[in-house]
């Protein structure tokens, strides 16, 4: 059973934990973002945009659930990730959302492919270097038999 809220709050009020209190974690997200950026000044536009995007995404998810409830049995709502992604990224079928907004889901990956590839290349280079430095015949052998110290 979870610890009751009042018991948990009593733990947190203990003087021993005073130095470990993190006020931001107990604040609603919008206020936390505001406080994080100075408290007395408005939250940065980027934060506000992110919050708006979150609300839009949530609304899109809710619409997706509604459409899905109409089109399929109630039980299929659970885990309806794909239909939501299609809705948010403009890939839904006619009747669910407008077509033609492009394949944004993959476009996001495509737009960052060199960043991803650069990170991957660095990681692979590090794996190969470590395996050679430790006298493994290959990075794969080094990964599979890391406790076989040479």
């Amino acid at each position, binding site marked *: 059973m979870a610890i009751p809220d009042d018991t*948990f709050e009593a733990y947190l009020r203990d003087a021993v934990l005073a130095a470990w209190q993190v006020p931001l974690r107990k604040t609603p997200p919008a206020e936390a973002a505001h406080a994080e950026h100075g408290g007395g000044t408005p939250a940065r536009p980027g934060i506000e945009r992110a919050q708006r995007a979150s609300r839009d995404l949530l609304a899109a998810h809710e619409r997706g659930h509604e459409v899905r409830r109409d089109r399929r049995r109630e039980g*299929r709502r659970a885990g309806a990730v794909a239909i939501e992604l299609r809705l948010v990224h403009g890939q839904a*079928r006619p009747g669910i959302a407008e077509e033609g907004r492009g394949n944004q889901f993959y476009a996001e990956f495509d737009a960052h*492919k060199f960043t991803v590839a650069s990170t991957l290349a660095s990681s*692979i280079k590090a794996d190969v270097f470590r395996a050679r430095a430790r006298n493994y015949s290959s*990075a*794969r052998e080094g990964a599979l038999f890391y406790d076989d110290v040479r």
Partner: protein
Amino acid sequence: MNVYDNLIASVRANLQPLYRYLELRRRVLGLKEIHAYDTNVPIVPNIETDVSWDEACDKVLAALAPLGDEYVQTLGAGLRGRWCDRYENKGKRSGAFSSSSYGNPPFIMMNYKRDVFTDVYTLAHEAGHSMHTWHSQRTQPFQTYDYPIFLAEVASTFNEELLTHYLIEHTEDKAMRAYLINRQIDDIRATVIRQTMFAEFEKIAHAKEERANRSLSIPSAASIASCSRPTSGRTS
């Protein structure tokens, strides 16, 4: 190393059932084309269950009976004892894992919910890791008792397989059977086929860097992704 290569070769040689299943999914979901994210949608109605923690332990332990009395009794005592931080709690992280330190019992962190049937599978999965650790600690010195993830997932996913077999054998409910069979197929796709695709990708990428005797170029790294694409069948 041979096991790794054989796994890739075996999966590649048996992709036709995957393509048939993806085509079935495409038709059932009414899509013109199927994408990777479409594979996460259940194609049979979800099931409503109410399974308490003790009932989940009973099911898992009964399903694992083929692994022997010692296995079942040790795991049962651990689960009903203090091996598992089982329920959600304020500030507790999501997900589940099994962890240990040498010379101590394994511990499971999970967030069991009685109305989420997959949590019974999560328990079986993490129990596999914990018992793997328990046996490893008793047969290996500290230097070699740990195991790579390639080996770790054998114990955990095998337990899930045993649980599926047990549940299918012990239910007459058609909706439940359909759910279990669909789950089994999706598990095979996600655990055996997809993970092997990742394994092949990493093998090719690292071998390319090792052969090149110079740093892997960024465009080259970007192109490697296409090397393992056939394994993903018609998902893209």
